[in-house]
């Protein structure tokens, strides 16, 4: 996208819209009475979401302030659980500022423009879009894993059936939860307004007749255990500041795996014993550039994380028959699949003994 396009109001009628009538300088600052470009732009705030949206949209802005999209609470809670010290001026806080903070979003970076991290720029003039663009907003940030899975961009793995059969965009399922609720949560799975498969597929729970697999496993296996395919896992991310003084990171090549393990987030709302697990890039030495042992309690949280891959299919290799899964060691996260350095962190989710094959099946 050319730089001029990023700020081009292709439709000047914007000033007749509700937001346009408020006036540019009220939100963005600057001085529109001056013709000289540089002077007129003194004090300009390109993304004025934080100080302005709240004026009219209190109901949403209030919950959004503590949503994971805004607060990055998901990162913070895991780093703290691993013993990280994020107090001001700490080495880890500096690393967080340099390498993690840019993943936060704002109202405008979903509803008006592309995310800053990807260069920003209007999506459609200055139009306020109630529904963010799947391509330019959601997948712009969530592209390498979820986006690629959903659209079938991983070699040999088909796109999600919700995309191929129904062309459902992200917000068809993920709506209110994107702004969070009025509760502060540590993970997106703790969000009380998070979407669940059964929100649409209620019949799966109410009518299991004729489906012995559902009859047997509902409530014990997350839906993805039977209905998703191999997904991307990342390893060994190390951050640093390069010779030019720029934040940099290096990680090992990603790998496609499918791993079933125990559910570390098991609760009454999330009762599954078995779930699928994804390896995120973090490792114990991820922040070593900034100081030694900045995650002293690294093993407190598994490195194979509860996951909900977005490549859902009705029929998958593992749900073809009972023994497609039972006795199939390749599907389960066992001690052999975990590096010795991460064995302790994952001890509670590794499957010590995989389900035995069903005789006569």
């Amino acid at each position, binding site marked *: 996208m050319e730089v001029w396009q990023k700020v081009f109001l292709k439709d000047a009628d914007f000033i007749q819209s509700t937001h346009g*009538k408020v006036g540019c300088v009220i939100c963005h600052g600057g001085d529109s009475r001056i013709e000289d470009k540089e002077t007129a732009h003194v004090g300009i705030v390109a993304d004025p979401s934080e100080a302005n949206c709240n004026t009219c949209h209190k109901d949403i802005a209030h919950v959004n302030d503590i949503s994971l999209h805004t607060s990055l609470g998901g990162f913070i809670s895991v780093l703290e659980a691993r013993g990280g010290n994020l107090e001001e001026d700490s080495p880890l806080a500096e690393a967080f500022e340099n390498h993690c903070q840019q993943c936060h979003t704002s109202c405008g970076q979903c509803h008006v423009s592309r995310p800053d991290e990807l260069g920003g720029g209007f999506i459609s003039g200055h139009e306020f879009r109630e529904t963010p663009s799947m391509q330019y907003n959601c997948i712009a940030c969530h592209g390498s894993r979820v986006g690629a899975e959903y659209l079938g961009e991983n070699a040999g793995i088909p796109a999600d059936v919700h995309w191929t059969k129904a062309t459902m965009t992200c917000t068809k399922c993920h709506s209110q939860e994107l702004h969070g609720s009025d509760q502060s949560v540590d993970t997106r799975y703790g969000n009380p307004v998070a979407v669940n498969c059964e929100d649409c597929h209620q019949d799966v729970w109410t009518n299991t007749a004729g489906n012995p697999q559902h009859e047997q496993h509902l409530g014990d296996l997350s839906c993805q255990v039977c209905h998703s395919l191999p997904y991307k896992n990342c390893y060994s991310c190390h951050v640093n500041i390069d010779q030019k003084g720029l934040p940099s990171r290096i990680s090992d090549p990603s790998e496609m795996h499918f791993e079933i393990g125990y559910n570390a987030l098991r609760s009454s709302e999330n009762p599954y014993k078995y779930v699928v697990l994804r390896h995120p890039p973090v490792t114990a030495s991820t922040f070593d550039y900034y100081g030694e042992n900045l995650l002293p309690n690294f093993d407190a949280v598994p490195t194979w994380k509860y996951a909900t891959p977005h490549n859902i299919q009705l029929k998958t290799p593992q749900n073809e028959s009972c023994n497609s899964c039972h006795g199939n060691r390749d599907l389960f996260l066992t001690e052999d699949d975990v590096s010795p350095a991460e064995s302790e962190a994952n001890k509670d989710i590794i499957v010590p003994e995989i389900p035995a094959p069903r005789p006569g099946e």
Partner: protein
Amino acid sequence: MKRLLFAVIGVLILVTIVAVGCVVEDGVGPTPDEGEGVVSSCVTCHSDKDLLKQTVTIVEEEKSEETSGEG
């Protein structure tokens, strides 16, 4: 007749006072100084493709060339 006239005038004055008192001020709307008249000067430039192309300032955001792998 005079009494009637005074009464009508009195009622009119009251109605005027009430009407003025009930005007809702729009707290978030632009003042005339800041509103559409001024907005249009921003819009004039930002809706002129050629002008934007001529006056654009390209600030190269440097990204580390050492970064590799997926985040």
